[in-house]
């Protein structure tokens, strides 16, 4: 009598669509987190504006801003589930937890990409960075790969925090050290893309490889671990 249980893919799609629709409807990230990140970058520019320091640290600032925004985005994406205890409802539905993990991750990747586009554009204007075509290609690749890693770790630890009620505290503690390597690799690669401190484009690509490894590792690990971390 019960419905046939749906496939992992369709669960993932339903969750990702729903998350993106909620963001589209509530615009919390666009209206709240994005201006926040923007103002962070403006204030940094104001605090550091002398002697070309700003250009030198611009890549680091961009990725710091991404990192903080990603923390808030992860928190928000699980706050949606806890608000009226939809998390329990999803658990009782007995659907594939891999599907839930993938859905959450995809929604996070999409939102992070949007953020990065805006933040990178902002940094080009605010920090007066010059970007060549080759640099742009490098930057896009870096963003994509870095996002996969950030999103996978975010979904994993965000899920853990939401499952262990009232322990959202754990999120930054777990997430920040875990994604620090991603941050560093992305910063170094962006330095090459922005050509700061005499870095050349060629120096950037090895970092991209590293990001790809992290992304793959984190997604794989997340897929395996999510069920264990969030259930019961």
């Amino acid at each position, binding site marked *: 009598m019960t419905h046939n249980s749906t496939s992992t893919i369709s669960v993932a799609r339903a969750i990702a669509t729903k998350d993106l629709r909620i963001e589209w409807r509530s615009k919390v990230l666009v209206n709240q987190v994005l201006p926040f990140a923007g103002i962070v970058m*403006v204030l940094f520019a104001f605090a550091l*504006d002398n002697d070309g320091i700003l250009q030198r640290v611009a890549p680091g600032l961009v990725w710091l801003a991404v990192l903080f925004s990603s923390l808030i985005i992860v928190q928000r994406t699980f706050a949606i589930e806890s608000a009226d205890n939809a998390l329990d409802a999803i658990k009782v539905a007995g659907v594939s937890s891999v599907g839930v993990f993938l859905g959450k991750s995809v929604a996070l990747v999409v939102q992070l990409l949007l953020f990065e586009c805006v933040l990178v554009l902002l940094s080009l*204007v*605010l920090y*007066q960075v010059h970007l060549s075509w080759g640099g742009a290609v490098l930057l896009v690749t870096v963003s994509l790969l870095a996002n996969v890693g950030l999103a996978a770790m975010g979904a994993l630890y965000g899920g853990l925090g939401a499952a262990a009620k009232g322990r959202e505290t754990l999120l930054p503690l777990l997430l920040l050290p875990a994604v620090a390597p991603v941050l560093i690799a992305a910063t170094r690669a962006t330095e090459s893309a922005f050509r700061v401190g005499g870095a050349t484009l060629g120096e950037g690509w090895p970092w991209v490889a590293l990001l790809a490894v992290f992304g793959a590792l984190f997604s794989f690990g997340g897929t395996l671990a999510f069920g264990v971390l969030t259930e019961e």
Partner: protein
Amino acid sequence: MNIHPFPSPVDTPTGTRASRGLGIVVFLSMVLLTLLGLVLTDEDVVQGSTVRLMYIHVPAAWVAYLAFIVTAIASAMYMWGKQHSLTFDRIAGASAEVGVIFMGLSLVTGSLWGRLTWGTYWQWDPRLTTTAFLFVTYVGYLAVRDLGGSHQQRAKRSGVVALLAVLEIPLVHFSVVLWRSLHQKASVLQPNGNVTMDGLMLFTLLFGVAVFTLLFVWMVLHRQRVLTLADAIDDGGLEAALQERRNEAN
């Protein structure tokens, strides 16, 4: 079924004979200002032709100040007036909207000018930064007006914000004195009252201020009437909604 108890706002003009007259005056003075700014005044000794940007940049900044001050005064009149008249609130809103436009204009012309004289669109200089903050503050003010709730509530909330926000203007004005700044020091109105500027340039600048002020008045007049009609539409929508709600009861 037309349930609006008043003529359709769509057909109500926002102009009156007086405001149309004012509009014509503004238009003609604009033409004259363009002539003065682009043709009749000389180039600056140091800045060359780029100085012509001043005739927009400075009036726009000053009229934006004026607009924000008008917003504050109108808000105060709303709050401390016996009637709590929404007219004052709408004037405050209209004036802030126009002020944000002028402030934006000043920011844009300033950064163009900066590109020409300092070689960069933007510098993290106190005047520039505080100006940007002032701009953001009034964008925030407009967002508060948009929060929803009753009209009176909107008026009260935004009135408070307007009174707080206006305090930032002195900060922008004195920022060049307070912090070491790249930006032009107060060159027209110096603290000691001296005026240091070539005659026709000064005249053009002051004429620009006058024209922009008139433009401001004209825009606020119309905008204020549009806001009045928008509020009326809201109230008219209420009648229809009430009717529908009563129908639920059958």
